[in-house]
């Protein structure tokens, strides 16, 4: 029994230590982000564009496919049970609630985490092991400014943009299915959707995209820098980053939903 409490206490202290380190890291990143620099951001801009290309542009086909499918599936599922309760008129509202408020930001977040977040942790972890981070420091290049800030901006800008893209394509997916089943026109479909959508839906979607982008990039870069000596730590840290991001996204999603809708 005593051993159990000892192990629990040890686990708890490690969690507290990790959480404190993550907060200290976030504060450091913010401090460096808002610190004015005399010279150019040229080298960081190159990293930013590469990150947007990888996280945003190259994710378009996958997110497009998922959003079309989810939009269509939501309509199919709604059409199977809503008419039983006389709730056909709620299809638009349901699509907005599911796509814009909840599934859109979460699914996009998970896809970005799986594609880019893991890549960021593995890349930074490998850079630590091969002394590339120390080499940057030795050249007087702050790795937070050169590597982390462009990645945070790149992932966040991409995630907000991908959220908008997700909404548009999921509505299109929903329309294509509705067209097959209900023989409705795009104008009527869009009218119903827009009638169901309020400004707070869009605000929440963008806010979630922004916060999820920050969480993914901060946690994944932090875990990358947590690699110390060996390349075997890289996959371990990558897995840890994924678990922590999933937890963080659900907690943040819950908090934002509670604040806005309850």
């Amino acid at each position: 029994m005593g051993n159990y409490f000892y192990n629990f206490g040890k686990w708890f202290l490690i969690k507290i230590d990790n959480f404190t380190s993550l907060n200290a890291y976030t504060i450091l990143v913010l401090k460096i982000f808002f610190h004015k620099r005399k010279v150019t951001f040229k080298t960081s801009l190159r990293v930013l564009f590469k990150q947007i290309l990888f996280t945003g542009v190259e994710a378009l086909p996958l997110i497009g496919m998922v959003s079309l499918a989810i939009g269509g599936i939501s309509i199919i599922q709604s059409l199977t049970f809503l008419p039983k309760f006389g709730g056909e008129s709620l299809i638009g509202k349901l699509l907005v609630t599911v796509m814009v408020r909840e599934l859109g930001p979460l699914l996009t977040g998970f896809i970005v985490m799986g594609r880019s977040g893991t890549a960021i942790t593995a890349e930074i972890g490998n850079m630590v092991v091969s002394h590339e981070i120390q080499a940057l420091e030795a050249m007087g290049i702050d790795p937070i400014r050169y590597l982390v800030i462009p990645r945070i901006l790149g992932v966040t800008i991409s995630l907000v943009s991908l959220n908008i893209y997700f909404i548009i394509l999921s509505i299109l997916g929903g329309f294509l299915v509705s067209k097959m089943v209900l023989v409705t026109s795009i104008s009527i479909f869009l009218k119903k959707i827009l009638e169901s959508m309020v400004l707070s839906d869009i605000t929440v979607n963008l806010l979630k995209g922004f916060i999820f982008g920050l969480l993914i990039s901060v946690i994944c870069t932090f875990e990358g820098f947590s690699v110390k000596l060996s390349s075997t730590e890289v996959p371990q840290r990558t897995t840890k980053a994924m678990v922590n991001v999933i937890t963080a996204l659900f907690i943040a999603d819950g908090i934002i939903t509670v604040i806005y809708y309850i």
Partner: protein
Amino acid sequence: MDEHILELKDISHTFEDETILNNISMKFPKGKLIAITGPSGCGKSTLLKISAGLISPDRGQVFIEGNNIFELSRTALFQMRKKFAFIFQDAALISNLTVYNNIALPLRHHYNPPEDEINRKVTGILKNVDLEDERDLLPAQLSMGQRKLASFARGLVLEPGLIFFDEPISGTDAITREKIINMILPLEDDPEITLILVSHNLDFIKNSADYIALIYENRLIAYDEKEEILRSTDPIIQRILSIIIDEEATVAEEILGILTGRVSEDVFK
């Protein structure tokens, strides 16, 4: 000794309860080449990284040009590092940048001159290290020797006044070794450039160093002008020098063994 560019005060460091460095104090004179040597695992490379501020020691202070570098703000420390270079044992080139972009990186980041100026400067340095044909290759496509040369070139691009070398010639073939030595020796003549290197190679140290620091079992055993150390009749100093020579000989013997006995046995199996 003359004017000091770098000073270490009471440096002690441990890693996972194991002592790496024990109470080391040294002063590095400006414009000289100081070689730090000692048997494998004695803490030479850690001492070099602490001297450059890349590792924080558990105890002690490091002063560069009179500034305690661990008390500087993060921004001030990074600004100060523009003035010196660190050449890593494993080159540590940025793996997703070409050789050209690796060398151009510190220039772009700190000064952002026009691209034609960057091109002129980087091309000149690439020519000096004989890597013009490799300029568009990634580090993974280079040999270890070429990576070291590229790392050397990257270190020199900002014209530093203080250069740290971690085992500059280890793991290189004879031609690359000669190229590296031929690049280090002219720097030695410049009174504004201080070179601090860690090496196992006593021949190289005998031919190049002004001062020698001997580290043994995590302690600084001796630190003096090269002639004083090499002429010393102190039994401890002689013992350490012989250990270094033995280590070199063992490595050479192992290589020779692989090249002769073992290879020929394999061939006739």
